[in-house]
């Protein structure tokens, strides 16, 4: 059976020498640090806040996700509209997600949602919580890796 790689990781075409590569990574480290601080200080990484969201008892999480989507959407619109390039001069391309039969999105999404409410953490917050000294989330991380591995193994047999 022909398997289609629906989501092959995007690999940058150009090759970079090591010095430039290290320099190039620093900016992602800084972006990640800011992301970790914002996730913590907005309490998005809190199991309590996730419960509050799924019980529809506060606008907080909806406000965060909603305003993040709006800001990101306007940014993406402007980037596409102006055919903006990266600071390094590369073309910016945003690959569309393949709908296919769509099974993967609602089945996988629902499975993810179950885990999200149980752990109170999606992948970003798992990492931020570890930084916050909630070291038992290392166990959640290993469990999430086991889940990812299991999906990878079963992938050819699952409906997508």
């Amino acid at each position, binding site marked *: 059976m022909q398997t289609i790689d629906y989501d092959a990781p995007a690999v940058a075409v150009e090759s970079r020498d090591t010095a430039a590569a290290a320099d190039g990574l620093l900016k992602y480290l800084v972006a*990640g640090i800011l992301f970790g601080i914002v996730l913590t200080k907005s*309490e998005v990484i809190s199991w309590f806040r996730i419960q509050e969201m799924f019980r529809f008892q506060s606008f*907080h999480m909806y406000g965060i996700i909603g305003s993040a989507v709006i800001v990101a959407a306007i940014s993406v619109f402007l980037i596409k509209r102006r055919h903006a390039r990266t600071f390094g001069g590369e073309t910016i391309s945003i690959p569309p997600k393949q709908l296919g039969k769509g099974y993967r*999105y*609602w089945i996988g999404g629902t499975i993810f949602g179950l885990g999200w409410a149980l752990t109170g953490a999606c992948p970003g917050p798992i*990492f931020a919580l570890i930084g916050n000294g909630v070291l038992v989330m290392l166990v959640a991380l290993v469990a999430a890796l086991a889940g990812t591995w299991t999906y990878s193994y079963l992938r050819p047999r699952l409906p997508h």
Partner: protein
Amino acid sequence: MMEFLSQPWPWYVAGPIIGLVVPALLLLGNRQFGVSENLRHMCAATLPGNVEFLKYDWKKAGTWNLTFIAGTVIGGFIAYTLLYNPDPIAISEATRSDLAALGISDFNGLVPSQVFSWSGLATVPGLIMIIAGGFLVGFGTRYAGGCTSGHAISGLADLQLPSLIAVLGFFAGGLIATYFILPLLL
């Protein structure tokens, strides 16, 4: 200033900053914001086995993202050490009483310590919420092709229908767990 930053940040400050991660990564190097890809990269790096989906050049595809997520751990640590908020979490009174009715008594810190601690891990609720929950997060996110960052933020921002379906699934699963599973566990 530090005192101000130590308060919980309101949604209208945090949300737009999180949203700006999307264009920042695009402009910095044509990268798509998606945290859960890192779980795949970590599997590919440590235990690819004979699994087709894990046989790819993870260093080339994922070094930037693994660096980003290492930053997220550091960011969490900085917030915890320099911007620590000692007050109990300011969730709504309704949530507080719902959770208290389920048996949650400690509202200090970001997570309920009776579940999310080493001693909590040794209990049945802790075991299920941490290990089974973590497993479902890892399985579901890769099956769905993204998590909250990849679908709910990047995907919705790019008006992608698959992401909308995935996000509806996230909520369906979350509501099932909140209303039907957690009451049995706690």
